[in-house]
């Protein structure tokens, strides 16, 4: 009976172990390359295979870890020889006997680095057991720079060893160049993301300041509040850390934005919010909502004379949050909208919409792009669905920006009332 219980418990384990054991020999058989063929073919296959096994680690660049793995993979190409890789004249990895010759070899490497030419040299050794008789050092060249060298120490006569060293060094150089390319590509993507970050629109800055100016004489208190809203909003939009924020933070930015818009349009603008509190902690791309609201204001108010209504809805949908921004304004022609989203309608038109759409697609995949329902005179409804969890998406903590992006909160003379904790705690 005990046995039965153990059997039941062990069954999944046994299964997993069996699977692993079963796959191991299969993999080994594939690696040994026991296919039939002429000896030359077999030698070629073996060499190519050795090279391809050593390639992946080198794609990480010239690091000690990568060098160690690569050297271990490449050594079979040289038979009994010892193999080393250096970055500049530092030894990164050494595989094989004759470690005590490393210093002498490094001396040669320095010369190789200076001249950029490969060298072959004889090695004399006092130790009778030491098999090393000759050595070769070849430069690794990446983009005309020489970041390091390959060192080979061998027994017997140098013979083809020197030639092989040069060839392998050239092959390693190619891998390192690929690594460089990889890095460049990653950098490019990051730069693209940075460039895609929403920018505060110049029109908005101008309009807001003009509206605030109109209050300075008639209602200085209101003007002061609006200026503070403007400062807060600017701080939020200019912050440089973290590509994501929470929906709650994003709503706060929208609020500041709408306060400034109201200064211009007064009671013509009506806003309705229907936010499920469950989705407030969801991480969303930084400034993904404000451009949509800005767009709604533009279509709902700026292009018509009457009142405009904007509705912002956020709903919990299990593993995703659905956010909808709706206005009852003039709407857009669907064809024109399509062109805007494809970026074919001039550089300035609807830049906010396209920007948000591209960022959403980049982070969450194509199925999470904006869904826009609109027609001429029928208003516009923009829907975005944000997954609650996506690997790599983490909200940056609010208000912990590096000092250089902190606004001079408490240093503005004459604004801070003593004891009220700065500008953040205002009346109302």
């Amino acid at each position: 009976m005990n046995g039965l219980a153990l059997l039941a418990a062990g069954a999944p384990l046994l299964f997993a172990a069996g699977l692993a054991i079963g796959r191991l020999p299969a993999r080994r058989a594939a690696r040994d390359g026991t296919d039939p063929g002429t000896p030359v073919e077999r030698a070629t296959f073996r060499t190519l295979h050795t090279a391809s096994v050593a390639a992946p680690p080198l794609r990480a660049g010239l690091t000690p870890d990568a060098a160690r793995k690569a050297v271990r993979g490449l050594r079979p190409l040289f038979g009994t020889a010892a193999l080393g890789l250096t970055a500049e004249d530092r030894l990164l990895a050494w595989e094989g006997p004759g470690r005590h010759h490393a210093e002498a070899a490094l001396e040669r490497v320095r010369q190789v680095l200076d001249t950029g030419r490969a060298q072959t040299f004889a090695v004399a050794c006092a130790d009778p057991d030491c098999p090393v008789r000759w050595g070769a050092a070849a430069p690794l060249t990446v983009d005309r720079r020489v970041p390091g060298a390959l060192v080979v120490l061998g027994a017997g006569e140098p013979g083809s060893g020197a030639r092989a060293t040069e060839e392998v060094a050239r092959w390693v150089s190619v891998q390192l160049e690929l690594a460089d390319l990889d890095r460049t590509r990653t950098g490019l993507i990051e730069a693209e993301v940075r460039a895609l970050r929403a920018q505060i629109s110049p029109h908005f800055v101008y309009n807001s300041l003009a509206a605030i100016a109109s209050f300075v004489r008639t209602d200085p208190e209101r003007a002061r509040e609006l200026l503070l809203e403007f400062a807060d909003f600017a701080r939020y939009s200019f912050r440089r850390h973290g590509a994501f924020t929470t929906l709650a933070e994003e709503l706060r930015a929208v609020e500041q934005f709408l306060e400034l818009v109201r200064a211009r349009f007064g009671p013509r603008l009506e806003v309705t919010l229907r936010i499920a509190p469950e989705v407030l902690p969801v991480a969303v791309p930084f400034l993904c909502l404000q451009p949509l609201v800005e767009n709604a204001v533009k279509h709902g108010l700026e292009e018509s004379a009457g009142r405009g209504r904007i509705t912002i809805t956020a709903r919990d949908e299990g593993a995703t949050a659905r956010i909808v921004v709706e206005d009852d304004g003039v709407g857009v022609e669907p064809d024109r909208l399509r062109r805007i989203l494809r970026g074919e309608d001039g550089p300035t038109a609807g830049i906010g919409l396209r920007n948000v759409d591209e960022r959403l697609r980049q982070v969450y995949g194509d199925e999470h792009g904006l869904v826009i329902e609109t027609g001429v005179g029928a208003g516009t409804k923009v829907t975005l669905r944000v997954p609650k969890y996506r690997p790599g998406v983490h909200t940056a903590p609010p208000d912990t920006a590096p000092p250089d992006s902190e606004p001079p909160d408490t240093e503005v003379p004459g604004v801070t009332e003593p004891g009220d904790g700065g500008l953040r705690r205002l009346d109302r």
Partner: protein
Amino acid sequence: MNQTYGIVAVSAAVLVTLVIGSVGLRVSRTTSDFYVASRTVPPYLNAMAVSGEYLSAASFLGIAGLVAAEGVEMLWFPVGYAAGYLVLLAFVAAPLRRSGAYTLPDFADSRLGSTAARRVAGVLVVGVGWLYLLPQLQGAGLTLGLVTGAPHWLGGVLVAVVVTLAVAAGGMRGITFVQAFQYCLKLTALLVPAVFLLLAWHGDPRPARAMEEPPTFRRHTQVTVDSTVRLRIEAPLRAVASGAVDGRAYHGGPLVLDPGVHEIRAGTTLRFPPGTPVPERAPGDGRPGGAAGWAAPLSGGEEEHPLYATYGLICATFLGTMGLPHVLVRFYTNPDGRAARRTTVIVLALVGGFYLLPPLYGLLGRLYAPDLLLTGDTDAAVLVLPERLLGGTAGDLLGALIAAGACAAFLSTASGLTLSVAGVLSQDVLPALGVRRFRLATLPAVAVPGTVSVAAGQLPVASAVGLAFAVAASAFCPLLVLGIWWRGLTPPGAIAGLLAGGGGALTAVTLTIAGPPAGGWARSLLAWPAVWSVPLGFLTMILVSLATRHRVPPGTEAAMARLHLPERPAGRDLPSTRRGVTTP
């Protein structure tokens, strides 16, 4: 039980739930004030929602039934169900929230960066969800059967269909207000009748006799046996029988049973005079039951190894709460780790308070509804008590209230579980289903436990939940605790541990439900797997991780920092500034 009141109460509970879920919330949350709109769920409300989703049919009906049938030993169930949150609070709550994960597979993914680990965790979540849905559907069948007189399986199937439709149609989303309301309903439904029952008990001219004694029928009692039972009788017993007893047919004639084991055929009706000791159900294999020591520890009912079973229960419930999929998703609603911790503390209080009530019902059930011990329907004790003790309209009304509470219990837990299981099924297990996959996934999410509940028949509700806890503890306790507190965890280690611990427990539990071995240690080991499967899970995870040390995921340091550092420096609570002009 008065069926009209019962049906009205159950329908009202369902309706109010749906109404709050759709219309009421829309009205109450519509605002033009950003300050109102961007208020996150406060911890107390979230805690009520967690409790509302957590207190299932097992808590509402099952615990009282087990206590009535098997004695104070079963008090470990409520203790464990509540204490699980203590472990959750100490080790998991805040870091899990900080990880940003919404489900358990999300956590495996974010901590280990491995799709394979994610898949394995997903499969185990589905297993735990199905196991947990099983007793919910059975509780539903029991309640609806008592209220409407329908056969048990019909109620389960009906609730399965309702939950599937509601979840697939988009209703019953994890709306905090609805779940919080469910908690209030459940608490009221047990608390108010409890007050009346206590008063009635107090005013009873024949107060409770010693607990040690076998309970006796207090008045003329008629019992109809639904399925064939074997009774063990200590002293000669007189009754009036119609049906078949020991293979002989009776038609309303007197019956005298000598000491020994007797078989009562299904459908037989027995009438007992007052003062008769309640005959005891003999286990299938004729072993002596343990009911003699009802009030003594380790009385353990039918368990052969009561001490082992107790440890199994403690292991499963203490460590299993953190692995319940429908509870964990609610923690995402907290704005940060600190709020998650506060929520857990309040949940401890709310759940702990609630669990004071079911044992009371169990005790009263043993005194006033002893015929349930005979038929084996002890899970119904809570539902029939008001009628037995109070009678009349008051009894009917209170009974209806309890029925409504039970209805809330299995509806809320079942819909929460269905949502979680369907979500994981559609996202991690069957990703090929396409865009509309969530709705499709709802079907297997409910159909599988529904079928099993019809096929498996009678399984004590609270024990079945214990099995779900055992699997959750064996699979996810090692993953969460090691994932949060140990840098050395590797994806192969996590997968091996999940398979060994969770897979082992799942196998044991499946064998137990399918038909356990007759007795001995094998039966106990399979019925209470947590004692060996949780250490097995931990050990496998640690050893395999140590063996594959080079596979420690590269982002581990950053992930650990995110899990353990507070979101913002101490003393810099975000001031909820209310500023600016709102819509005039």
